[in-house]
């Protein structure tokens, strides 16, 4: 049998730390280094599927922002060290999490990854039940291999407790319901079924386990006032679900590195987040990238992103088939809150107000050496994570303020003004964000 790179079971080099392994703090000391504030070693939060204390518990209680890194298909070996670095540099202002798609790897690969991500307080192994719902979302056709790994995708009679058990086997400590896509043509029925499944899952939890109600929606659920009202009414009334994990598929022609500017969609996110905050629900928005960061200002507790592609945004599957996709070198530029093409970077850097990134991955990226997609992705994750850490409350138990996000957005808009950023490098979302904040 041939092992594919990135499939998680390959032996050599697993969980290496990239080019800065010797320079990164804590490396080679034989044990994880302690950060300032919260303990870095998230696994100390609780054994197995438990989150009992520390930053993970604080995040699941809505007291600390949660930054979730979606396991990349490629370069996932670098994620543990990235998280460790982020944990140290965020100095207790951020809880870290990892999320992997249950159908996408073997149990062994999940376990290895989750075990290696010591700095991750929250470990999600998402059942991604929506993969079976092509009638409601535009998703890839289910592969036979994914169907074998996640048998619940092949039929509707798989027991709820079985889905929880699979997540436990994979090393998850925040359990999710299946996450089937909700049918807009039967909104009430779909929501009721999701909540019913959630109730069954709650009843099947072991002492101390935490569960998030996992919903997958198309964008109409946030854009359409009636659908949104139905969704929000459930959020308010179902007090038994303290944590909501809501994934929204952004309509075409979105790009993973471009933030949506659809004000109906963003307005829906805002109302959703504000309602969650008002009613003290922990709301997690996976696969939302910088838009998830923006939503922290409105009351979201956590968001997820990845180093590239679909992990940064949950997009409609493209109609295109085949054909070689041109690889474009892109760089997350924190000063404009956007991922710009590398060609635009020199223009930004020429400005006297430009601040060169000092993250562990940028040295190699910015000194003229061959472009490494892996480092660009890690830099992106580091940068977004540090932005999230800025939003943390100044004191324990205090809500985080939208002022931090709004201030960052205004600064970015000012910096971008007059820089002739065009095409996908234009941070057009900043104008929309500024209006909505």
């Amino acid at each position: 049998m041939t092992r594919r790179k990135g499939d998680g079971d390959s032996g050599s080099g697993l969980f290496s730390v990239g080019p800065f392994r010797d320079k990164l703090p804590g490396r080679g000391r034989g044990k994880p280094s302690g950060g300032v504030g919260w303990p870095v070693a998230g696994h100390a939060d609780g054994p197995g599927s438990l989150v009992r204390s520390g930053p993970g518990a604080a995040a699941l209680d809505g007291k600390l922002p949660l930054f979730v890194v979606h396991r990349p298909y490629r370069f996932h070996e670098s994620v543990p060290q990235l998280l460790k670095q982020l944990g140290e540099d965020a100095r207790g202002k951020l809880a870290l999490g990892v999320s992997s798609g249950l159908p996408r790897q073997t149990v062994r690969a999940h376990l290895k990854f989750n075990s290696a991500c010591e700095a991750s307080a929250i470990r999600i192994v998402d059942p991604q039940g929506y993969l079976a719902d092509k009638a409601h979302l535009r998703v890839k056709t289910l592969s036979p291999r994914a169907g074998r790994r996640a048998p619940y995708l092949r039929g509707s009679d798989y027991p709820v407790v079985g889905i929880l058990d699979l997540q436990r086997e994979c090393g998850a400590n925040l359990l999710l319901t299946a996450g089937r896509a909700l049918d807009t043509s039967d909104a009430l029925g779909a929501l009721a079924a999701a909540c019913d499944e959630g109730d069954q899952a709650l009843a099947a939890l072991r002492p101390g386990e935490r569960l998030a109600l996992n919903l997958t929606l198309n964008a109409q659920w946030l854009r359409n006032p009636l659908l949104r009202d139905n969704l929000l009414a459930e959020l308010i009334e179902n007090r038994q679900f303290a944590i909501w994990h809501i994934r929204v598929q952004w309509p075409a022609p979105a790009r993973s590195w471009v933030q949506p500017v659809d004000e109906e969609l963003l307005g829906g996110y805002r109302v959703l987040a504000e309602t969650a905050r008002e009613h003290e629900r922990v709301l997690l928005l996976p696969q939302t990238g910088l838009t998830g960061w923006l939503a922290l200002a409105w009351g979201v507790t956590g968001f997820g992103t990845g180093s590239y592609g679909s992990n940064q945004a949950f997009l409609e599957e493209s109609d295109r088939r085949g054909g070689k996709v041109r690889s474009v070198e892109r760089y997350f530029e924190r000063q404009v809150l956007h991922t710009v093409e590398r060609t635009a970077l020199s223009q930004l850097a020429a400005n006297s107000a430009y601040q060169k990134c000092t993250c562990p991955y940028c040295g190699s990226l910015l000194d003229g050496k061959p472009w490494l997609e892996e480092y660009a992705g890690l830099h992106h994750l580091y940068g977004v994570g540090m932005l999230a850490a800025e939003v943390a409350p100044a004191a324990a138990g205090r809500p985080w303020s939208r002022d931090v996000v709004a201030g960052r957005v205004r600064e970015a808009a000012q910096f971008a003004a007059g820089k002739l950023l065009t095409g996908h490098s234009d941070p057009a979302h900043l104008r929309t964000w500024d209006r909505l904040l």
Partner: protein
Amino acid sequence: MSVKKATGKVQRTRFTEAEVAAALGGPVSYLGSGAFGDTWRHGDTAVKIICGQPLPAERLQREVDGLRRVSSPHVVRLIGTGSVTIRGQEWQTLVFQYIDGDDVAKRIEAGRQPSAADAEAFLNGVLTGVADMHGVKTVHRDIKPANIALRGGEWSGPVLLDLGMARGDGEDTITAYGTAVGTVMYMAPEVLQGQPQRDAADLFAVGVTVREVLGGRHPFYDPGVNYTLTQRIARIDAGPRPLPAGFPDHVKEVLDRLTDSRRYIRGSASSSLRLLAREGAAA
């Protein structure tokens, strides 16, 4: 059969006063009728005899279980269940504490409105009762002035009665829309459109009831007009009548939220109480 109530109104009852007194073993007085039965005062208790529309045993048990979980000074206490035999047939009963004091419908009828301070206390009390019910996953489904007693006659002592199964004096009750039970004039728009009655529907009814108390008239409907369903929804969408001057802004704000046609704006009873407390303290 009919019986004369304390208000002077003549009400139709399923059984005579003598039949009920004999069945319960002591003097009784008629209190009111609902879709599922009649309620009689018997000593310090209010006994509801389930003798109206057939009530499935499972549903009755669910209601009873819900009520037993509620512990609130603003929700009538369920003492127990039982049965009585009248005319050779056994009827189930629910036995509640009797609340001494008039109900809110009578206050409205008499044109007696609360002061600003009493209005806030009344709203707070009703919301507390609803929060306590919703906290144990029990939806009242028929909140209206006739189903709120004032303990000791005080606006600050509202007590929710009848708990989802009653019909008030001379008011319409509909059961045509799925599981909808309640009074049309206090029904939330989503219930009028056939959606299930959930927490948000209770909150809408609280908003309508309290607005009616404060304004002396229904916030959406004119008396004596028989509205179509479409007209009712249109009037709710157009917004309630303005409240009279003199009531605190935060009370108005909470009432505006509660009578919004969008359910999520109504929030929860707990969030409304938090808003009242927060804004009340700031005022």
